[in-house]
């Protein structure tokens, strides 16, 4: 274009702002459009950047080029003052039609550019997507991991009419189950990968024999301690009422005990009513234990005693194992994987104690 024609065109020529996205690409955007974004507007005011390619304004990391294109389309329409409210609404409705992934990226980018009207618009669209869907559908739409256990899904607000003690009990046992499952997962991993297997078994052996400075050990010790205390309380708590048919399991570690109670609770209403007789305060001390906030520094003598007990339990476990598996898998479907039979004593102790 010649100088002369440029001069003639001058009144219509807009000024441009240079924007740089996180991937390094730079583009030129009409100033009116770009300034519609508060973040860009402030950046220009404060630093004076954006007037040339070398001094392009760096956009936040959440804004990639394709999303920037969408945002600029939005700005280009809305910065024109002449549009009626109805026109704006119609534009918005059409604009919003995109796949969920893009919608989420757009929300994030608009937020980083402080473009509140667009954030409101996209939030509304996302809310509309979520509303009325089942949790599975929502997880699928947004690719959310289903990583909550059943226990955690016992949403307090959903079981509005349940007896609170039963729910507390369920929560307790579910938590124990979760810990058990995690330990089992660890254990299963051990089996699959040979070299690792050796090491972890060694670890287990070593902490059973009283090694220090191991986190697992701490929790195992806590568990041991819990079991001790629980044994002391067993008579007070009258859990045995529930397990009148399973008396041989009285001294079994708490986790297994729980499953039976849980089964009992779920399987038969009569047993359910028995637990209603439990004194209301019985479970609060347990909660404390399980939250594991107690400081469990055991002295050596205590440790040895515990070790001996652990070995006792292990032996009992081994002997009753097939029977126990049957009992464990009674009632509702369990998410637990049966502990494999060919593992050695110490690992079983570890999981049993979980």
């Amino acid at each position, binding site marked *: 274009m010649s100088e002369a024609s440029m001069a003639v065109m001058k009144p219509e020529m807009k000024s441009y702002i240079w924007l740089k996205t996180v991937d390094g690409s730079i583009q030129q955007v009409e100033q009116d459009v770009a300034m519609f974004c508060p973040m860009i507007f402030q950046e220009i005011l404060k630093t004076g950047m954006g007037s040339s390619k070398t001094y392009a304004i760096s956009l936040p990391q959440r804004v990639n080029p394709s999303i920037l294109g969408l945002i600029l389309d939005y700005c280009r329409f809305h910065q024109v003052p002449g549009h009626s409210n109805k026109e704006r609404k119609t534009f918005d409705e059409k604009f919003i039609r995109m796949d969920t*992934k893009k919608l989420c990226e757009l929300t994030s980018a608009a937020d980083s550019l402080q473009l509140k009207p667009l954030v409101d618009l996209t939030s509304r669209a996302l809310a509309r997507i979520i509303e*009325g869907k089942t*949790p599975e559908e929502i*997880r*699928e739409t947004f690719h959310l991991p289903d990583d909550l256990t059943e226990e955690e899904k016992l*949403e307090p607000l959903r079981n509005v009419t349940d007896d609170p003690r039963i729910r507390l009990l369920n929560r307790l046992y579910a938590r124990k189950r979760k810990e058990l499952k995690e330990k089992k997962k660890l254990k299963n991993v051990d089996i699959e990968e040979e070299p690792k297997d050796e090491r972890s078994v060694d670890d287990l052996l070593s902490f059973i024999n009283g090694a220090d400075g191991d986190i697992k050990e701490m929790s195992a010790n806590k568990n041991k301690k819990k079991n001790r205390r629980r044994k002391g309380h067993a008579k007070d708590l009258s859990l045995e009422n529930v397990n009148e048919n399973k008396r041989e399991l009285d001294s079994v570690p708490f986790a297994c005990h729980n499953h039976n109670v849980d089964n009992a609770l779920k399987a038969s209403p009569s047993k359910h009513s028995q637990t209603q007789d439990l004194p209301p305060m019985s479970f609060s001390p347990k909660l404390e234990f399980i939250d594991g906030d107690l400081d469990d520094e055991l002295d050596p003598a205590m440790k040895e005693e515990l070790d001996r007990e652990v070995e006792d339990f292990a032996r009992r476990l081994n002997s009753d194992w097939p029977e126990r598996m049957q009992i464990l898998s009674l009632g509702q479907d369990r998410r637990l994987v049966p502990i494999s039979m060919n593992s050695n004593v110490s690992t079983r102790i570890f999981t049993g104690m979980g």
Partner: protein
Amino acid sequence: MGDALGSDLISDLPQSIVESILVRLPIRDAVKTSILSSKWRYKWASITQLVFDEKCVDSCSDRDVVEKSVVKFITRLLFLHQGPIHKFQITISYLQSCPEIDQWILFLSRNDIKELVLELGEGEFFRIPSCLFNCKKLSRLELFRCELDPPLSFKGFLCLRSLNLHQVLISPDAIEGLISNCPLLESLSLSYFDSLALSIRAPNLKYLYLEGEFRDICLDDTPLLVEISVAMYMTDDIAEHFEQSASCNFLKFLGGVPNLERLVGHIYFTKYLSIGNDPGCLPIIYKNLEIIELNQVSFEDMKEILVVLRLITSSPNLKELQISGSSNIPSATDAPDLDFWEKECSSKCRLSHLRVVQLTDMCGVPHEMELIKFLLASSPVLETMSIIPCVYVVESQLKMLTELVKFRRASAKAEIVFVRE
């Protein structure tokens, strides 16, 4: 972390966006997000807006059961909630006054509540506990069917911008005190108060909505009022009281609102304004008044017509006018004071911005026709005049039409739409 299909789209968005989304969901759905994944477990618990309506618990035929379950739901939710709560709204018709509500309000008063809306059922009025008056950050308060009794030491809500009291038991002194002690008050709505005599002093007030039987309203200090909407009911003894009053209601009410942009009146509002002495030529010009809507104007009462005229002629920028009549079927023998129109409306009067006029429930009484004649003659940019005759006067409609066509129109563009059912 995500499943095989792709990475998590949404869990890592900033909490402000998550809040923005959750707040647009019904409260139940918002709470249900806690079972989606471990990251989502407590995202709902820090939303700052809690809105409870009829649908937040499962409905069932037994009202008591539903009521109990909603109380449980709200109590538990508040217990699990973390962080400030800026908006708390209950609009549940089957929830009656109960002690738990006191506890909720106490909880809210400790959590920076800013907007509180309480619309309970039609039972016993809920007595608002005194802890409400400790909510220093309260900016919006809406109460339906409550009893409000501010303590003597109450110095006002310093941040309150919007107050809506609907069927609230409160002494007139307390309301006046409340209004004048809230310096930032911008929007005031009072509905269904019985025989209220009120003097409103609110220097920042912009929007006023009144509905009910008002004995006397005086806008003492409301210079910034922009929108007024009044639906005034009148009982016989109030009407009597008015007959004896000499003060000019028009000036008492509209004398101090020069920035008025929109005026809406229903039922006896125009009559109320007409009571008292004629203000004569008004000392005030409503420069910004663009929309006037006066309903149930009696065209047989000269004073009411005068009110309408004064308003119209004092609003040079009037754009839209809506008037509905309330005349009974006219008795033709009456000889109305028609030369009044020649006296009051000089031909120089121009409504240079009036574009849209709507006249409803017109019976064809002489004064109605004179008004139409006046409007047509004085509105050079009039675009539409819609006339909807009263459904009871089928015979007079033809007469009305005949007269209409005779009227001179100042605007060449004016369309007269005569709507017949």
